[in-house]
């Protein structure tokens, strides 16, 4: 049988770490439905200049993480994901810059484990869909994503930990920064 991992359902996880001196370093991890890595792409540090800081104000972070980092990584990645998960709804605007569905994990209710009572949570937004053990939100102006995400949701095991891959990316990004700093200039 020639069908390999790359032919299966692929999930993207996008996040970034911020280094005080160097700026944001973003990472996109593509996994199969079991969380096994298929491809990883990360950026060199992106540091907004003073003008950008002033002019973008509170939208700076979503701009850098979404439009600059997220879009670049999605263009670059060879194993294209069916869905990209982000940790914050701020980044959903990335959807406007890509044809791939983007969804944000619903914030954790304080004091509760990720899966606790999630099923009972009232849907706070019509754009929220149960996914694995979590709830995810898609971009309000991309209603067409609902069908696609609902279809994909059937492929994700109910006990899949959708927050764990973000930890892996952060660890890999920190390692990348550490190695690049250790390398002689």
């Amino acid at each position, binding site marked *: *049988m*020639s*069908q*390999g*991992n*790359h*032919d*299966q*359902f692929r999930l993207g996880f996008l996040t970034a770490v911020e280094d005080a001196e160097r700026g944001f370093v*973003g990472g996109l*991890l593509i*996994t199969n*439905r*079991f*969380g*096994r*890595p*298929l*491809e*990883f*792409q*990360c*950026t*060199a540090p*992106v540091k907004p200049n003073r*003008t*950008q800081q002033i*002019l973008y104000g509170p939208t700076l972070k979503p701009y850098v993480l979404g*439009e*600059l*980092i997220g879009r*670049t*990584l999605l263009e*670059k*990645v*060879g*194993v294209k994901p*069916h869905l990209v998960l982000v940790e914050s709804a701020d980044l959903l605007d990335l959807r406007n810059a890509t044809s791939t569905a983007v969804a944000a994990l619903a914030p954790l209710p304080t004091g509760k484990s990720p899966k606790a009572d999630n099923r009972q949570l009232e849907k706070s937004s019509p754009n929220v869909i149960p996914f694995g053990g979590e709830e995810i939100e898609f971009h309000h102006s991309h209603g067409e994503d609902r069908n696609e995400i609902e*279809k*994909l949701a*059937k*492929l994700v*095991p109910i*006990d*899949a*930990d959708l927050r*764990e*891959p973000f930890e*892996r*990316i952060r*660890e*890999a990004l920190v*390692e*990348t920064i550490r*190695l690049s700093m250790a390398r002689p200039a």
Partner: protein
Amino acid sequence: MIKDDPIAEITPSSEVTRKSTGSPSNHGLRGPHWSPLREGDARELGSHTHDSLDELLSDVQVTSIPLAVRIEILQSGLNVALHRWPKIEIEPLHLPKSPSLMPHWKPTRQKVLTFGLQFPEGASLLAKQAEDEKKKAGPRAEVPDDGPPKIEIMPDYQPPTVASLVDGLTEQKPKQVTRIKPPDDALAIEDRLFYLLQPPLQSWLAGQEMIMPFEPFPYQYEGIGWLFAKSSALLADEMGLGKTMQTITAIRLLVRSGQARRVLLVCPKPLLPNWQREFRTWAEELPFVVVEGDGERRKLTWTMPGVPVLICNYESLVRDFAAFGEGEFPKFDLIVLDEAQRIKNRTSRTAVTARALPRRRSWALTGTPIENRPEELGALYEFLEVVPPNATPDLRQLQSLAKQFILRRTKNLVMKDMPPRLDRDAYLELLPAQKSAYDMAEKEGVIQLNELGDSISVQHVFELVLRLKQITNFDPLTGESAKLDRLEADMEEIAASGGKAILFSQWTKVIDWLAKPMEKYGALVYHGGVPTKQREPILARFKEDPDAHILLMSYGTGAVGLNLQFAGYVFLFDRWWNPAIEDQAINRAHRIGCKSQVIVTRFISKDTIEERIDRVLTEKRELFAAILGEGDDTNVSLSMNAAEIFGLFDLKARHGKGVRSISPKQS
């Protein structure tokens, strides 16, 4: 030329050549410090308050102050010898009349540099029940044909918890996550990220992707992760901690993650069925082939494509490797040597062959990395390719390499909750016929040895020891045996309670002799004389047949690799030279999964060679425990050396009229 006027002349070109008086004026204009008015400014100023610049300037009052030094010096600050008049240039300043626009700023998409790595495609192996699972899965698994492949819903399998395996553990444990760490020698960023981005082992193994028959213990997860990330590794866990399972699972992960496509596992011949069984248990989806049959068939097996795991024994490996031409032997991504102490003698054919095998990763498994001498560890390091050929690392280097390449856990450290092992030494008086046979043999033997004088060797002493040990088992003439009497008494009780026991002896002859009196307890015989194909069914019968209460085994065949944790009793009918081997034997029963305590009975005949051997071994064990600590009491040289074997008898050779002690010859 010196003028009194502060400003001599202002020309349209704004260039004035003048010398100031250096006198401060009432308007603040003073000597060399005034700022020259530019033409435009002056004009503007004049237009507000004065009619003309001349008028303005005429208002300036100048008062001369006599100075003590020559004016030239004050003016220039330079050496007076230069005698050069300062030049003052005046440039017009064009003040803006109206605000102008700053340069436009338009957001442009910054170019972001990226770095990426793709992961090797893992082997695509179908779980055996994949089809059944799909049927069972129901509508949740139904995905349109044009969509991504169907999810394989795992069967309703609930892996047993640690608590259910080992009594006395509480069910609720915090969720443990074992991440694979990059190996120390992985320096390239791609290599380090490969490991860092792997999911936690628990999510690989907890039914999401791989079915595990039992939930591994936390230390086993650690071991699996450690092996997975190592290209050179010696897993030296104490017997019974699951080296087999950890190795198979790590191989499984390597194959599934595309890190290995061809793996060779080499083990002693008696363990072949055991490894096959374990592979079926722990990696049901992983195809394996055993290298066996005639030469042609074996050669075909070695080169067979598409087989992820090959299993062979040491003997066929050595034979078949020699049969291939140089450079023709197939390459492997990983070679695992089980019971790796087999290559402890680095000049042996087995060791030379093992080192010559073409491979990318080398793992060695052994519960006793050092049986006698630290150099044995050096031979293993050489196979692992962490020391140069023929290197003789000193103790400090061995220790430092051990930290990097050896993982060793003892039961004391990791299995605090395992049911205890109760050791009881049964000191038995020889029966009368045994006693007289023993005394006579000893007396004659010692006389013979003494007569040998300086030509005596360890071998001579050894032969006597063996003869005496055999008599302590039973009298060859009458068949009297104190040990058998005691064994029968114990077995009656064990059989009555439905228990099972394993008995170990050094001699197959003793085992065969015991088979008859033990027949009433359903005795089964398992030793080197039993054909390999018949061995597996014997073990299966011992496990399943409620009437089979005792398994008679030889140390050589039964001491390693077998899982007999359902047996609650172990008898050591006679003693082995090395307690490490005895421990291996005992650990067939006292290992993971055993639900109740294991009672170990060592038969020791009083006032015989057995008692003396026991004393020497006990003293050595205590000594090493005192030096190295209680945590690791088998990783040391425990077997008896030549001097100790000689010391079992008070051997003296005639020396002129007197005698002198005989000591072992140095070979």
